[in-house]
């Protein structure tokens, strides 16, 4: 188990609130935990970055990793 920091943006920040810590071995496990706690996440498209690197597959987490949860971009 690693302790990681969760940050979120846009619509997801409205749901998840301020940054917080969570414990998980990998990103899939983390997402499952979060979806249990925040069922609204199920219906949302969401991208993940670990330590500012966007990931597309399940990724192992280390202590102090920063996991960013990002809804679809809408800049410009």
């Amino acid at each position, binding site marked *: 188990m690693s302790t990681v920091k969760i*940050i979120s*943006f*846009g*619509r997801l920040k409205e749901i998840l609130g301020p940054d917080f810590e969570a414990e998980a071995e990998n990103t899939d496990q983390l997402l499952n935990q979060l979806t249990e706690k925040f069922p609204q996440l199920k219906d949302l498209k969401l*991208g993940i970055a670990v330590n*500012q690197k*966007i990931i597309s597959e399940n990724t192992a987490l280390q202590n102090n990793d920063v996991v960013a949860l990002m809804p679809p971009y*809408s*800049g*410009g």
Partner: protein
Amino acid sequence: MSKIKNIFQNSPVSPLFIAESITKHSAKTEIGAHQIFLGQIRTDEIDGKTVKAIEYTAYEDLALSQMAVIREEIFSKYNLTCMHVHHSLGIVKAGEICLFVFTSSKHRKEATLACNEVVERIKNELPIWGREIFEDETHQWKTNQ
């Protein structure tokens, strides 16, 4: 590693800033063509409610490193003299400008294609979010088409 340039500012892009940016290029007399894109906040009407502003937030560190990658790829693809990008954060009101993309090249084609591609990539690849604020202070999250 490419140098990270800031593209964000906590205010709308002012026309005067654009003029100053153009003026700075008059010394670069190898430039023959400038292409500029400006994004302006629209008073969209959604379910009878009118957008009066958009509040932008970003994952700034990630956005700036993504932008550095885009910059590098654009410069290796197109023969540009220079390229400048400015995106507002915070509240930008209807009629104000939230995005300024400015490319310059010797001949027209390069600046034009590059400008278009940079705008496209900014909208698709930069972690920036717009919160559309209606006149009754309710909001919805903007989605890019």
